[in-house]
């Protein structure tokens, strides 16, 4: 019998997470914030389930929305049957129905997709999601055609006074399932299968030589991931009370890939950050600017090129520097570089916004509201200011970048030295 101390840190983190989920709607009380929080929590489950494939198993999927979307369709039909009295199921358990449906389709499609890995796997998943999407327009009976399937989440007698009518009750339902799913998915990372998924990701040949069937490992991981994706689909069905062909589309699959990668695939909590950023970008930014998809695409490319670990890795790297007490040396250079980048960013954003205004909105006059100022897009002044900001920021960034890089690499070399010495 091995002595295992209670992992206090882990209990603390999960406890804080649960506490955060409980108090979040009490802190953010503005009009739409509960609805936003519900969307974030749903996307978190979806992102975490996606990261089981991409982060843990190294499987880049373009078709994850097939599982969550089909799960959502089955869940919404289950809700409609429950309200007709054909099926006895509580709304609380509807996500489980979605999860089982997602798992079923995972068993079905996964058999084909997981035959391959790497880029071929990516292409096949793309084909599968297009297949499902095309089917959704062919069978209007199940998929509801263009309009989708609608439902009413207030079914049957209230249970302990919970009707799921008010949004706040739906939020707590989603938060409850988020917590359970997150614990489940974290537990999966600790199981032998989860470890094998990592091995198959890193070195499939070696895993096969040890005697594991890599295809079988990928298949099982995908089936479990599809289960959690289905749960998120079921929650989305309850939250929005409508499921349409868009839920099984390539667009939805691409979005979860974007957000998960932006959040960071190397850490378990990365997709959660990605979900928060994603909802902010899609819901908040899209109400301010028409160019939000351009910003999202460019942001994603920058992350892929310069920070492939996502936001999570940026946070963790800086935390490591703070932990070793070296942040004071990096900080003065870091903030100057960031400030310069910000100046250049303002210039670029000004230009893009004015350009969008000129091509898409010219009918509504030459004036464009920018950061509280009305700018005339036909006069050169606005363009000049933007250009100067961009040039100054880019020049400053270029000048200060090397000093920051030097300080950063020095500090990190020192830290790695210290770690090595501590180990020896």
């Amino acid at each position, binding site marked *: 019998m091995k002595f295992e101390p209670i992992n206090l840190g882990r209990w603390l983190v999960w406890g804080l997470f649960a506490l955060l989920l409980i108090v979040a709607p009490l802190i953010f009380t503005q009009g739409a914030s509960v609805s936003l929080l519900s969307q974030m929590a749903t996307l978190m489950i979806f992102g975490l389930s996606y990261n089981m494939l991409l982060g843990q198993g*190294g499987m*880049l999927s373009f078709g994850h929305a097939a599982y969550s979307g089909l799960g959502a369709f089955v869940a919404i039909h289950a809700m409609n049957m429950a309200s007709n009295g054909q099926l006895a199921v509580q709304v609380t358990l509807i996500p489980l129905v979605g999860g089982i449906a997602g798992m079923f389709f995972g068993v079905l499609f996964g058999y*084909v997709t997981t*035959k*391959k*890995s*790497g*880029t*071929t796997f*990516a*292409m*096949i998943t*793309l*084909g*599968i999601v*297009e*297949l499902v999407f*095309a*089917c959704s*327009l*062919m*069978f209007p*009976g*199940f998929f509801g055609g263009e309009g989708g399937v609608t439902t009413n989440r207030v079914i049957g007698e209230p249970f302990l006074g919970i009707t799921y009518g008010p949004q706040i009750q739906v939020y707590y339902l989603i938060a409850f399932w988020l917590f359970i799913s997150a614990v489940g998915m974290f537990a999966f990372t600790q199981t032998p299968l989860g470890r094998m998924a990592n091995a198959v990701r890193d070195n499939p040949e070696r895993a096969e030589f040890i005697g594991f069937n890599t295809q079988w490992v990928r298949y099982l991981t995908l089936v479990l991931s599809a289960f959690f994706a289905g749960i998120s689909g079921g929650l989305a069905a309850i939250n929005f009370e409508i499921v349409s062909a868009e839920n099984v589309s*390539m667009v939805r699959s*691409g979005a979860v*890939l*974007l957000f998960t*990668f932006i959040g960071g695939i190397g850490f378990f909590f990365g997709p959660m950050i990605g979900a928060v950023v994603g909802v902010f970008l899609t819901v908040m930014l899209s109400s301010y600017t028409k*160019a939000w*998809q*351009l910003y*999202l*695409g*460019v942001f*994603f*490319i920058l992350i*892929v*090129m310069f920070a*492939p670990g996502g936001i999570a890795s940026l946070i963790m790297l800086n935390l490591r520097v703070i932990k070793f007490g070296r942040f004071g040396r990096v900080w003065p250079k870091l903030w100057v570089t960031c400030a310069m980048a910000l100046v250049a960013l303002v210039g670029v954003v000004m230009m*893009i916004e004015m*350009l*969008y205004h000129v*091509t*898409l909105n010219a009918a509504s006059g030459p004036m464009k509201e920018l950061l509280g100022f009305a700018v005339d897009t036909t006069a050169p002044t606005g363009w000049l200011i933007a250009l100067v900001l961009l040039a100054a920021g880019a020049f400053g960034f270029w000048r200060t970048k090397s000093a920051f890089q030097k300080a950063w690499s020095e500090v990190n070399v020192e830290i790695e030295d210290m770690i090595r010495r501590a180990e020896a």
Partner: protein
Amino acid sequence: MEFTLITLLNGLSYGLLLFMLSSGLTLIFSMMGVLNFAHASFYMLGAYFAYTVSTQLGFWPALFVAPLIVGAIGALVERYGLRAVHKYGHVPELLFTFGLSFVVVELVQLLWGRAAVPYRIPPELDGSLFTLYTTTFPIYRGFMMLVALVMLLAIYLILTRTRIGLVIQAALTHPDMVEALGHNVPRVFMLVFGGGCALAGLAGVIGGNAFATEPAMAATVGSIVFVVVVVGGMGSLVGALLASLLIGIIQTFAVALDYSFGSLLSLFGAHISIDTPGYAVLNLTIAESAAILPYLLMVLILIFRPKGLMGTREG
């Protein structure tokens, strides 16, 4: 007979257009292992550049200028984008091109607006080439087939008969050896990527006015092209040709056939009504299911011949 012949011709011309798109993708993939998700975006760029150039200089200069511009953009993307990501592996490269496809669609809307642009077939190619029984076959379809065949021949000759083609083929299997012999392999990669994008651009020039030049055009062919590459076998040009023709013909025939399983069963005396179990599936006509046929074909190929029609190895 008339229906069969004319549909076959239409299918062939659509298939050849698919081949123009997938050949560049296959070339890039077999050379660099990069799956260019933005390939269809370059196809769209080709169509838009051809539209702009043709309004200034006419269609024929556009036929040459637009692919060159697209090729140059492709080379720049390789040089300043992909090469930086290369060290992280093939999946980040794929992710980079995935992000690029987002950005290109937005930039196209930024420059040319959200509606379709009036990119038209030039008057000298507008008309009928010949009349088969009672159906006319447009000149432009024939022109598309001609361009595709010329392109196929050109790729074949360049790859097998020229010095740079031999270097490319060698760099495909033995990049280290080729580099040791003094060739600049990264530049060869840049050339191949640019060339592949130029081929997509050429497809855009002649496909853009045959169909519609709009921001959604990349998404409509994007997935099909990947299906072609998987069905044909990853990295095989001949496979890509066969698969493109197969998918082109299957889809063109399917769109025109208004039969369902139900009508087949009623031939044998079965009575199909709305109460019959599985009515939704039985009543589905082939025309309605045309959209899923390429994907079904892909799934079947993967189950019964996982390496694709002409693939040499299982990836």
